[in-house]
């Protein structure tokens, strides 16, 4: 919280307003889904935090302030009046930060109560804190990644001719349940592997199809995200060649992810391998149609991103996915995704990369 306050001062924000969600969990440990009744948490630059909740949620709201702060309740239609009063009492001034996922309705309610105030995105504060993971957070991410590999191993053992993509997804979900976590996966077969997020078309597994599985699980709120692409049966020379380019691209991003390097340089390193192999350029398909990676933590995708235009320097404690895709519409796609964390001496993968098209696990 002290770090957040320092960032607020730098950004000229008198307070940050959050609703339930991952940022609230990050700062308070309270799990609260934003719902119909407004619950807002205020972190002021000075003074104790406080929560504004409906009378009916007063007991639950205590969990939000168990570390410090106070609960203020509202009766019926005065949620925003109470919230504005709370900001005033904490001397928040006229420049208020709004967490990125706060709903428009909440912002709109508040601005009507504070017509002179300016409301700005609070990403520099919330992401500024969340981007750098502590050793405890990295340990939780490690556990989530380890479990995902185990679930994929179990599910890949069930591959059989004629299987639907839904059945494979179901088997991965079942493996997660058996491992004591909740998680899901997207499964894609054959030519639909070229769509990074799959297709609604029903698919059944045939000899010679590529199988792509992507997603993760959650451990104490911390997310994993792993993709494997493997051959079912015998691969063609073309499938092997593209798979090997993909693996080289993933390696190139890993090698480029050194502390101090700009985020965009990691994307450029992976993209160069793919472009040099005759794909692209840029986001053109056949090629790599999206960024190389995203931050990961309490959200599966979070700040900051390995994308062209992002000059943020990498720093120890940052965690990213490394997942260039090679998409060839009409043929197939290959994506290998492992997550990495940045250390003083470079990036380290949480998991062993896939060594070959017929060996998803290292």
């Amino acid at each position, binding site marked *: 919280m002290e770090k957040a306050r320092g960032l607020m001062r730098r950004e000229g924000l008198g307070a940050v307003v959050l609703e339930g969600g991952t940022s609230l969990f990050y700062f308070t440990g309270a799990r609260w889904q934003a719902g119909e009744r407004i619950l807002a948490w205020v972190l002021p630059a000075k003074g104790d935090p406080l929560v504004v909740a409906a009378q009916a949620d007063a007991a639950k709201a205590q969990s939000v302030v168990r570390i410090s702060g106070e609960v203020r309740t509202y009766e019926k239609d005065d949620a925003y009046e109470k919230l504005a009063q709370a900001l005033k009492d904490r001397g928040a001034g006229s420049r208020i930060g709004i967490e990125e996922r*706060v709903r428009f309705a909440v912002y709109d309610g508040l601005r009507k109560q504070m017509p002179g105030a300016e409301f700005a995105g609070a990403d520099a504060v919330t992401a500024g804190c969340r981007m750098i993971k502590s050793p405890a957070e990295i340990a939780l991410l490690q556990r989530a990644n380890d479990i995902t590999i185990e679930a994929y191993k179990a599910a890949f053992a069930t591959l059989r001719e004629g299987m639907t993509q839904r059945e494979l997804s179901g088997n991965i979900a079942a493996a997660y349940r058996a491992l004591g976590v909740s998680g899901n996966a997207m499964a894609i077969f054959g030519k639909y592997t070229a769509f990074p997020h799959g*297709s609604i078309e029903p698919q059944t597994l045939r000899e010679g199809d590529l199988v792509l599985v992507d997603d993760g699980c959650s451990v104490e709120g911390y997310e994993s995200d792993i993709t494997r692409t493997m051959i079912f049966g015998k691969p063609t020379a073309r499938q092997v060649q593209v798979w090997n380019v993909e693996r080289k691209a993933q390696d190139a991003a890993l090698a480029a992810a050194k502390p101090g390097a700009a985020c965009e340089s990691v994307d450029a390193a992976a993209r160069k391998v793919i472009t040099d192999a005759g794909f692209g350029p840029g986001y053109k398909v056949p090629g790599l149609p999206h960024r190389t990676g995203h931050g990961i933590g309490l959200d599966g995708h979070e700040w900051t991103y390995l994308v062209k235009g992002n000059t943020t320097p990498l720093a120890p404690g940052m965690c990213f996915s490394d997942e260039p895709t090679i998409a060839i519409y009409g043929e197939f796609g290959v994506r290998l995704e492992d997550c990495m964390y940045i250390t003083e001496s470079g990036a380290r993968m949480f998991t062993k990369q896939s060594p070959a098209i017929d060996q998803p696990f290292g």
Partner: protein
Amino acid sequence: MKEFGLQAVVLEPGPAMQYLTGVRWGKSERTFAVVLPAKGDPVWVLPGFEEMRARELIHLGKDDIRVWQEDESPYARIVEGLRDRGAAGPGNRVGIDEAARFFVFDGIRKLAPQLEFSGAAQVLHAAGADQAQGAGRGGGR
């Protein structure tokens, strides 16, 4: 919209989008939105690499799908869509999905400070699209 003095409504994925367009999409950090103008056809704004998957789902307004690439601004596309539908002039009023996330609204207003923004709840209510508007966050990992 005409009744409530709005020139357009911008929706993020969620119950209102699903009710009015039939498109069910998970909210993610990548902006996916539809501009529903008071006059003219809808404009869809979505990530370039999702175009193929989105085209499987979009039927209403499928002739105007505008994509943004990963290093481009989705908000520039949304504001262009508003402009092309005559909804981005000075003093025009645009309704925002009450469940839309602040960063989406913030991105739009920075590029179109001449607009007035208000909640779209009344319009969506009158259109019958607010049955499940309580939840602020959709699925999608």
